[in-house]
């Protein structure tokens, strides 16, 4: 009797649509896939631009020229000190409201780049650049000072020392935190919904208002974000193995050498 009542209540209360969830995951609509594609290419573009920008900012923070150092430090302070959500609204809606700049659609050959996509990529990249600058700073600081001294003692000017000796080593140190950043970046694209960009999250919201299958559709969205970050996790692992740090490259041969060759390697 009690059990029957519970089942009835569950039946009345929970209306979980398995079919809808399965369809959303395994046979997503074209609109949804389009949103997913946007999420991916905006993330990739913003991460690439943000990494390049972050390098430029960090190099300017290490400049011999004080105003450049100040500018770099101020940039990082401003960007890291304000929420991405607010930055997005300021860049896309704020600038337009001020009549300062309005993002308009751009036709590049066969491709039309929407104004809102431009604003999104630009803002995400600008935001990311500040964090990447911090990551690159930490990586450069982690390199033994003897590396720079050796380059300088050979007669390399500062820029060449940076390019040939410091950056290649910093890049290896940057890979794990860079992977972390890209993981965050893919999830941050869901914030683009506030400026009306039809990425995966906003597309799901549209589906939700048409179907009211709120739990199912956002569960499907969560599954897709998880899928993206998991796939990225594998890519990152592969990159880390390819660009393994100098210590990682040698750990196994050295052990072998020690065990079998007895070459007195220190």
């Amino acid at each position: 009797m009690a059990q029957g009542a519970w089942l009835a209540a569950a039946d009345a209360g929970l209306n979980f649509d398995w079919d809808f969830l399965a369809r959303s995951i395994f046979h997503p609509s074209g609109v949804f896939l389009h949103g997913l594609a946007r999420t991916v290419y905006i993330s990739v573009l913003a991460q690439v631009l943000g990494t390049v920008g972050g390098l430029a900012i960090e190099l300017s923070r290490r400049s011999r020229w004080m105003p450049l150092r100040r500018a770099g430090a101020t940039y990082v302070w401003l960007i890291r000190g304000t929420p991405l959500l607010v930055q997005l609204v300021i860049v896309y809606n704020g600038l337009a409201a001020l009549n300062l700049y309005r993002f308009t659609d751009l036709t590049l050959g066969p491709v039309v780049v929407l104004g809102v996509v431009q604003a999104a990529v630009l803002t995400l990249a600008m935001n990311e650049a500040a964090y990447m600058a911090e990551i690159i700073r930490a990586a450069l600081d982690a390199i033994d000072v003897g590396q720079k001294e050796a380059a300088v003692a050979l007669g390399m000017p500062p820029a060449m020392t940076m390019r040939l000796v410091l950056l290649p080593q910093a890049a290896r140190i940057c890979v794990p935190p860079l992977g972390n950043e890209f993981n965050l970046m893919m999830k941050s694209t869901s914030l683009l919904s506030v400026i009306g960009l039809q990425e995966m999250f906003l597309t799901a919201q549209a589906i939700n208002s048409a179907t009211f299958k709120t739990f199912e559709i956002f569960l499907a969205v969560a599954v897709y974000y998880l899928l993206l970050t998991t796939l990225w996790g594998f890519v990152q692992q592969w990159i880390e193995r390819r660009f393994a740090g100098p210590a990682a490259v040698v750990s196994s041969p050295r052990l072998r050498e020690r065990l079998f060759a007895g070459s007195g390697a220190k």
Partner: protein
Amino acid sequence: MSAAPVLLEARDVVKRFGHRPAVDGVSLQVQRGETVVIIGPSGSGKTTFLRCLNHLERIDEGDVLLDGTSVGYRAGRRGPVELSPREVAATRRRIGFVFQRFNLFAHLSALDNVALAPRNLLGLSRPEAEARARQLLARVGLADKEQSRPAQLSGGQQQRVAIARALAMQPEVMLFDEPTSALDPEMVGEVIAVMRELADEGMTMVVVTHEMGFARSAADRIVMMDEGKILEEGPAAQMISDPVHDKTRRFLTVIAH
């Protein structure tokens, strides 16, 4: 030897860390082809002085001249003006430096470590630079290690690569900062042998070391530093067998075993 021209000269060099002078008015003339060994207790300023010679340390007073030209400064209207990093770099190419901790480029093979600077600073093509690097690695007895990363090499091998790397720029003078102090005892000999050969070939060398075997066999002159100053200097044989100062005598006894 005394007729040879002065190649490297320090004039009243002062280097302070905070208010404490680490190098306190040191003057030294090194003739072309000469090997000078600098000894002294830890904290005597010998390493700092050596680093002043190629402007790895910015000096506070005095001057360092390579072949008559200042290494780090030029005359300004109101005293010396520091040269730009680019200008200092150009002078440093003529001065080889070997570090206590080797400082091989960790991301590059032994061959690339040696070839990097000539390729990018002397305008050599990759094959030219690599040919030079191979020749130098062979000279320090590491022809078979050209593809090894620094972490795969023993300390003694790393230091020999480091010497080859410095030689690849064909410097006029080589500075060695305690090149064997970070090595296990059994590897000291292989590094000393390379250095001795260099000295025999007529390379101008300034060596900070406690290896009195090297000083005895390769040095023309020994300089004893103490508390940032030169306590005494003289021909190697005389300094070892008959130093003037008690402090030098005691120091030599201490490092002898």
